[in-house]
């Protein structure tokens, strides 16, 4: 398939453009670009471009709790060729063999209706081609076998990050069962991974879900935080029931919660479990999502953990080498709903939705409960703005899981794509004999500024009326055309790659923010400045649900077509500026190569 780029140029620029002294043009970043009325539209291009992944949850009628929970996906550049490749997490069969062996979630050898499905997660290489006329072609090739990445276990999620600072992105896979750390050892000729779970010391045998690589002690090495769900295995399986007594999937409160895990990176390829010392064992819960983000702007990355039907946790990073956290969720207004009630929080994103230079939190919830938008007051205290924002009522009919924050029309405001799929049987589907009657349509919420979002799903294309059991939603620019695409994973269904075909006419700039050694500078904050406006974004791969997104920062500029300045606020201190970056391109901004900004110039 040929994709026509929306911009005149999307070439990679290894270094920031020169022309730094040029006076910026008298244009500001307009939030109502000339495409404001154009709908944001996506079209699924997965299968026709070689992305033929189908998730299987292994359901056999036993209603094992793990079946409807997975799975996620990662968008990352595995081979360093400048385009996004894809890793998709697989489930598998849950059978008697696994329970006999006492291993949680080990896939059954053969048998079952999914015996023909390839076992384990799949790695797809993107062979993006850009023609001279700007047309783009993405083609995916399954390179799982040759890469050596053998994802064992009943997969849940994936986190991406360069834990060994070799400039290549590694993957941590969470499972219903033992997790795995895969070190990327690809070279220019081949894609290759080696499993280093044991040698790195990051073994976790409990039911893990979300995970994030983040430099929590600001020592230049990515630490690893993993959320664990509940104490369930096939031996402790219970059959729960609907209100009338029909057998149904259990909820998280049927099992004891689990504590999460934090490993500190020693900087030598190994990690130390510091969960107890850091204080995070104090709150065993039912974690599903996590973001590492500096919510109180004190220079240290905090951890916000979404828990299923238990209070969410905001681990405030006390700072220093020792890694020490305290839960401040309740007092900051991020633990429970406005009614004081723990919600069933699943996916989560942290972004500056209201454009006030701090990160807000948005998370997804069950049918008949609102998704929640917590707006940051700048000091790390939050207000629940779910209903006033328009994100509340419109989410009641669906159970949200993955959530991708992206600027779908490049107007400078972050929109939301939400992956929906129920966990309790939907009457009309059950009546029709659907074996997995949990299907719901995904949603697109468009940010119109002033704190208001509007459900724009109807105009967003066929994909937003399709009924599926969606779980992960991962944003990234798959064809480097300056428009954010979305990868959707479906439980027991095909993955969808939603290609953004919006014709907004708005401008954009793409940034890959790198540490000196070439790793993505996860945790850095990016400020894109025009004459009198600025947009803040964070460099991250975490969030959503069980997934890892494109680490690049893609900023919509609205009508601004003049060069802009970019300031990077590095995690370990220091601000650098790159000036006169022309829109319509991706730039690599490497630490130490920008102009240092003195503290008095920072605002």
């Amino acid at each position, binding site marked *: 398939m040929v994709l026509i780029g929306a911009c005149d140029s999307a070439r990679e620029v290894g270094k920031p453009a020169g022309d730094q002294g040029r006076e910026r043009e008298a244009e500001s970043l307009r939030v109502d670009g000339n495409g404001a009325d154009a709908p944001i539209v996506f079209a699924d291009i997965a299968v026709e471009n070689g992305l033929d992944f189908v998730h299987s949850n292994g359901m056999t009628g036993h209603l094992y709790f793990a079946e409807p929970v997975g799975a996620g996906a990662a968008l990352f550049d595995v081979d360093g060729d400048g385009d996004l490749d894809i890793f998709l997490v697989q489930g598998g069969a849950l059978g008697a063999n696994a329970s006999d062996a006492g291993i949680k979630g080990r896939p059954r050898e053969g048998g079952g209706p999914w015996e023909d499905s390839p076992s384990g997660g799949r790695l797809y290489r993107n062979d993006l081609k850009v023609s001279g006329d700007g047309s783009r072609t993405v083609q995916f090739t399954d390179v799982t076998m040759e890469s050596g990445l053998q994802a064992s276990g009943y997969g849940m999620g994936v986190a991406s990050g360069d834990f060994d600072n070799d400039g290549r992105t590694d993957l941590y896979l969470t499972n219903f069962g033992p997790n795995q750390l895969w070190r990327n050892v690809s070279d220019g000729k081949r894609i290759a991974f080696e499993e280093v779970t044991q040698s790195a010391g990051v073994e976790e*045998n*409990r039911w893990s879900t979300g995970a994030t690589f983040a430099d929590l002690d600001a020592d230049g090495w990515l630490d690893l935080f993993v959320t664990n769900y509940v*104490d369930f295995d096939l*031996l*402790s*399986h*219970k059959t729960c*029931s*609907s*209100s*009338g*007594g*029909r*057998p149904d999937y259990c909820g998280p*409160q049927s099992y*004891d919660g689990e504590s999460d895990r934090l490993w500190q990176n020693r900087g030598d390829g190994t990690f130390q479990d510091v*969960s*107890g*010392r*850091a*204080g*995070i*064992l*104090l709150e065993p819960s039912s974690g599903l999502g996590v973001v590492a983000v500096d919510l109180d702007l004190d220079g240290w990355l905090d951890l916000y953990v979404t828990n299923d*039907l*238990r*209070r969410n946790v905001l681990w405030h990073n006390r700072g220093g080498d020792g890694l020490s956290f305290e839960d401040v969720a*309740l*007092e900051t*207004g991020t633990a*429970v709903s*406005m*009614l*004081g*009630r*723990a919600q069933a929080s699943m996916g989560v994103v942290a972004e500056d939705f209201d454009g006030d230079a701090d990160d807000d939190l948005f998370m997804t919830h069950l049918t*008949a409960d609102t998704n929640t938008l917590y707006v940051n007051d700048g000091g790390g*205290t939050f207000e629940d703005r779910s*209903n*006033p924002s328009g994100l*509340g*009522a*419109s*989410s*009641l*009919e669906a159970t949200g899981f993955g959530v991708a924050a992206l600027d779908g029309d490049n107007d400078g405001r972050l929109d939301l794509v939400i992956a929906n799929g129920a966990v*309790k049987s939907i*009457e*009309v589907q*059950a*009546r029709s*004999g659907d074996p997995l009657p949990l299907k719901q349509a995904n949603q697109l919420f468009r940010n119109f500024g002033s704190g208001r979002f509007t459900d724009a799903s109807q105009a967003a294309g066929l994909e937003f009326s399709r009924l599926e059991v969606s779980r992960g939603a991962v944003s990234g620019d798959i064809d480097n055309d300056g428009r954010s695409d979305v990868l959707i994973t479906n439980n027991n269904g095909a993955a969808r790659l939603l290609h953004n075909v919006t014709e907004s006419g708005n401008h954009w700039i793409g940034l890959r923010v790198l540490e000196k050694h070439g790793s993505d500078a996860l945790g850095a904050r990016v400020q894109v400045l025009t004459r009198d406006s600025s947009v803040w974004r964070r460099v991250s791969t975490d969030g959503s649900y069980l997934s890892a997104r494109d680490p690049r920062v893609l900023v919509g500029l609205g009508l601004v077509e003049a060069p802009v300045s970019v300031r990077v606020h590095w995690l370990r201190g220091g601000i650098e500026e790159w000036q006169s970056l022309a829109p319509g391109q991706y730039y690599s901004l490497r630490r130490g190569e920008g102009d240092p900004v003195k503290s008095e110039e920072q605002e």
Partner: protein
Amino acid sequence: MESHLQALLRASVPISLRDDVREVSRTTLSLLGAMSLVVFLACDPATPPLVLEAVTPPSDLTQLDQAVQVQFADLQAALEAVPEAPSVASGSAWGALGQWFHAYGYSDSAGSCYRNALLLDSSEPKWSYYAGILEQESGRWETARGYYRAAAELAPTELGPQVRLAELELQLGEADEAETLFRAIVARDPDETLSLLGLARVAMTRQDYFTALTHLQHLVELQPDAAEARYALAVTLRQLQREEEALAELALVPADNLDQVRLAPQGPWDSELVRVDRGSRALTRRGVRAFRARDFGRAVELLGRAVGSDPSGADERINYALALSEVGRLPAAEEQLRLGLEFSQPGSELMGKSHLELGRLAVKQHEAEAARAHFDAALNLDSTSVAAHTELGRLNHRQGRLEDALSHYESVCAGARPFPEVCFWRGALLSVLGRGDEALMALEEDSQRFGDNPRLETLLARLLVTQPSASSRDFARARSLVAPAIAGTPGAPDVVVAQTLAMIAAAERDFGRAIAWQGSVVQALGDEHRRDLQIARRRLVLYRQGNPCGSPWERLEGLIEVRVEPPEDAS
């Protein structure tokens, strides 16, 4: 003028409702091999017949609890028996069927039934009310608003629709409209709790936190346990910069939703809907809530009804037994647990749970060997069972079989789900058995993996100051370990911490201070803690004789949470 209800029905049913319906015929179709009811309301021959929405029995009807199936059959029969014309009776029959679907989570069918009920009897407001609830839960708030308005028009004295309508207006951002409605309700019933909360929320949206505070303070006087009131009060206090009060309010909001007392519409229609649900799960949920609220009599009633709904449910039997046990009906509890055992799948977790509870019941009845047999049986079913190991540890501990107790505690601490409390006793027993080095090592490890656990750190402090070798004693660290325990117990330290402070002082040969603390402990302990009082007195004698304490934990020492008034020179 068209009423809200007429407008809604016109919108939801493609065929207009006419006033001149004269003749009704009903056809029963068979869909999915079961009952299907489609009612044609034949009107004027010139107009097409009015069609009620088709409703079929749920495809999983046979999987529902027996009592629920019977309930459905009764409603089905009632529907068959009503006259074939629009009437209160036919509307009621459809409405009642809608309640059944509503109560058991079949919201599509419930909605159809309510709409049919309204077509047949538009004078009954509660069908509008229930239809509104369904629409609201599905996020169709504008439709819900119409239904509530219709219900309120038809039943102006009924508060339920007005309360829900007011809440909906607030959620829709119509603060002025919501306030008008809430005020009208409070004018009629000054203690209507949801409206007081609503008025507080209206004030909060306007950032008028003083007004919000007034409403919330009134509300918590009426409903001191309501979680949403406490939480709203905390948020308001925080906005008023009254941080400490806000934190105190937050502490009153139970962390677990199941432990929370909720404000809910208490009108007759809401109660009626709750009563429809005869499923064992709903009864269990309500029973468990009563149990957690320590309303054991109510828990017995509800959990007993749950057993009636699902007589072969092992879970229901166990829950019922636990409630019976709490009200002292131990033989009845035992009988239920034995039935639970009988109905459990062989080798299942429920079977283990039945054994565990039978064991606990035996402990209550001082039948140690019977208890041991049940705990062993639970352990045979799951050798890693933390609960079984813990109970066997406690049982052996109580019987003085310390090595056996230790072995079970060790199993818990070495397992995948260690508990700090059990690991505390592992450390205590190791020291009692003279294995101080092992105790020290274990406590150091536990202290690290459980973070700042005051109990573990207090015991570790004791070990650090009672080391046989003087050079191994670490007074400074011991003091620093106990400091958080003191800070974490506002008011006064408990007996364990106070005795530890005395122990540290004695080890440092500050016997005056040791005697002062230990004396306070002796004063604090009454006769109900006779064993610990003896231990405390022995230690006091030691200090008076100028001797430090040699053992960090005594064989019969307990974890007593009685507060100790600090001596005057305790600074």
